[in-house]
């Protein structure tokens, strides 16, 4: 059983939901990321999504775009991201790490070399935004052969047929994008998410993490009640952006926000 499957299974048995933070690797500078990851674990997160910076992040809103630009200015790359993950793993054996990014850096490295390098870095899951299952079966097979979960996105307009397809090709969890739009957008509609989750549950047995539009403890709690996990990204990165002259302050504010989310998810607001 993969580290991701174990994590969701254990949470499920404890009646708890996964808190999944997303940060862009190397933002605001490369050495920031590993201590941030450990601090987030201490704040009670269950899985960490590491955003791999890309020059053309087509599905991301302005907050994550700028995080990518800051990281790229420090020459952050897919290879260096794997190095960051490896460093984290030296002192943490239990928290799953998922890479989230775009396909071209993987194309440039080569699928097989990437899969091998990800396995060496003990990466647990890979979510490639612009690689739908139609184009991604080869990549998914390479990852699965190395016990790495290929994770796929589902959207509000995904049909039952597509949900079944993701269920077949994906593993670990499915990432439900709770609104039509880019990351960091504001118009989260809880009733729509609730209705969609029923359709998702009817078509997959994989855990469902919900993201896009999670901003604070209240939205985290509300969303957590609907799915198996909550992904929070832009709200965290906004803290980094607001404190570029004082990254330790950013770290502190991120920890406080995640701790508040954890508390709300476990105990109610």
């Amino acid at each position, binding site marked *: 059983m993969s580290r991701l499957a174990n994590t969701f299974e254990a949470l499920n048995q404890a009646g708890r939901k996964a808190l999944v933070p997303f940060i862009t690797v190397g933002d605001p500078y490369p050495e920031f990321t590993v201590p941030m990851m450990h601090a987030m674990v201490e704040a009670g997160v269950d899985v960490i999504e590491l955003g791999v910076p890309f020059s053309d992040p087509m599905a991301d809103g302005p907050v994550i775009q700028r995080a990518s630009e800051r990281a790229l200015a420090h020459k952050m*790359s897919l*290879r260096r991201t794997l190095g960051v993950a490896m460093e984290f793993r030296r002192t943490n054996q239990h928290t799953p790490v998922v890479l989230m990014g775009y396909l071209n850096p993987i*194309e*440039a490295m080569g699928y097989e070399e990437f899969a091998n390098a990800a396995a060496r870095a003990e990466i647990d899951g890979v979510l490639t935004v612009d690689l739908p299952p139609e184009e991604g079966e080869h990549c998914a097979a390479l990852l699965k052969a190395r016990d790495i979960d290929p994770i796929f996105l*589902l*959207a509000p*307009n995904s*049909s039952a047929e597509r949900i079944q397809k993701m269920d077949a090709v994906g593993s670990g969890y499915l990432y439900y994008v709770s609104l039509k739009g880019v990351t960091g957008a504001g118009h989260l509609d809880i009733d729509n998410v609730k209705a969609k989750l029923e359709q998702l549950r009817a078509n997959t047995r994989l855990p469902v993490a919900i993201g896009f539009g999670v901003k604070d403890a209240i939205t985290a709690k509300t969303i957590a009640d609907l799915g198996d996990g909550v992904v929070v990204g832009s709200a965290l990165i906004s803290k980094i952006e607001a404190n570029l002259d004082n990254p330790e302050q950013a770290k502190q504010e991120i920890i406080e926000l995640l701790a508040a989310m954890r508390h709300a998810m476990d105990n109610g607001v």
Partner: protein
Amino acid sequence: MKQLIKMTEKYTMPDARGHFGPYGGMFVAETLIPPIQELNAAYQRYLDDPDFIAELDKDLQYYVGRPSPLYHAERWSRELGGAQIYLKREDLNHTGSHKINNTVGQALLAKRMGKTRIIAETGAGQHGVATATVAARLGLECVVYMGAVDVARQSLNVYRMKLLGATVVAVESGSKTLKDALNEALRDWVTNVDNTFYIIGTVAGPHPYPAMVRDFQAIIGREAKQQYFDATGRLPDALVACVGGGSNAIGLFYPFIDASSVKLIGVEAAGDGIATGRHSAPLSAGRPGVLHGNRTYLMADDDGEIIETHSISAGLDYPGVGPEHAWLKDTGRAQYVSITDNEALDGFYALTRMEGIIPALESSHAMAYAMKLAPTMRQDQTLIINLSGRGDKDMQTMAKREGIEL
């Protein structure tokens, strides 16, 4: 779309999922899968729908002004002393370039699909103007994304778009050019998928765009083939067209792909020179990768990050190229060369002074290559160059280079 002589039959690319060999495909985020499938279904349906074709033909004739002439540039041919040069006059179309062939087609599709809002990306502004034009005519809301750098260097076209009622959004992210405009248009589309039709201006993007835009632009090659055949009873020896995304080139090439005696030559922008790294020539000096929904040749570094490009012409300033060109390159059916900014200027002045036709800076790249190629050919051989757009939009750029204040 009447076909009087044999066009393309043996060549059947792309496959059902939009692949040209290893290139093309549908590399998009999940939210875009349903609208792309909806678009593909509509496109497949109307491609063979007699009502749709009749409406499109009528618009192309009475609104765009087709057929465009195939003009024998006799003085310039004599001056160069080699092949006979023919110009396919896409510069004479309504709005001044070949871009309108595609926007008329996609706008008719949008109307039939019940979409009320049109978005587009633009580089030089020719596609933006062509989109704003058809949106005005059909009474559709129109938003055009344009890199902030391009907004500054193509201000005339920005004004034209605004006159036509479009909202022009200056994109400030990344390199602030065409690729960033495309990113932003994709973000808009993800957010407004229900009522919005995205008119992509070139043969890039996810399937079905590369094939669909090609099919709308193939009118260029069909006409040229027929016109040249009517005049001479034979086929030309070579075709030359500039390649940014590659829509005018594929439009000219496509009906000739089966005719193996006809050389197909695409001209990329070498900018300051390929060796300087400051260029926009992915087929000449790039590598395969995935960007904007398809696999193709790209300008990217060893980490797969997209490199900033350069060309004197905003319309060629793009790090990718249509996936069908990647396929035609690998199979050897077409060859791709490059022309520097300075060489393009030579082409610009030559056509202006020899034939009294001011070409767009994009098309000037094709002219410049023809100046190299024609003298190496016999006088009984023929070169058709796609004059894809007129130079009016470039007057400010040119005057500035000459130190003249307009």
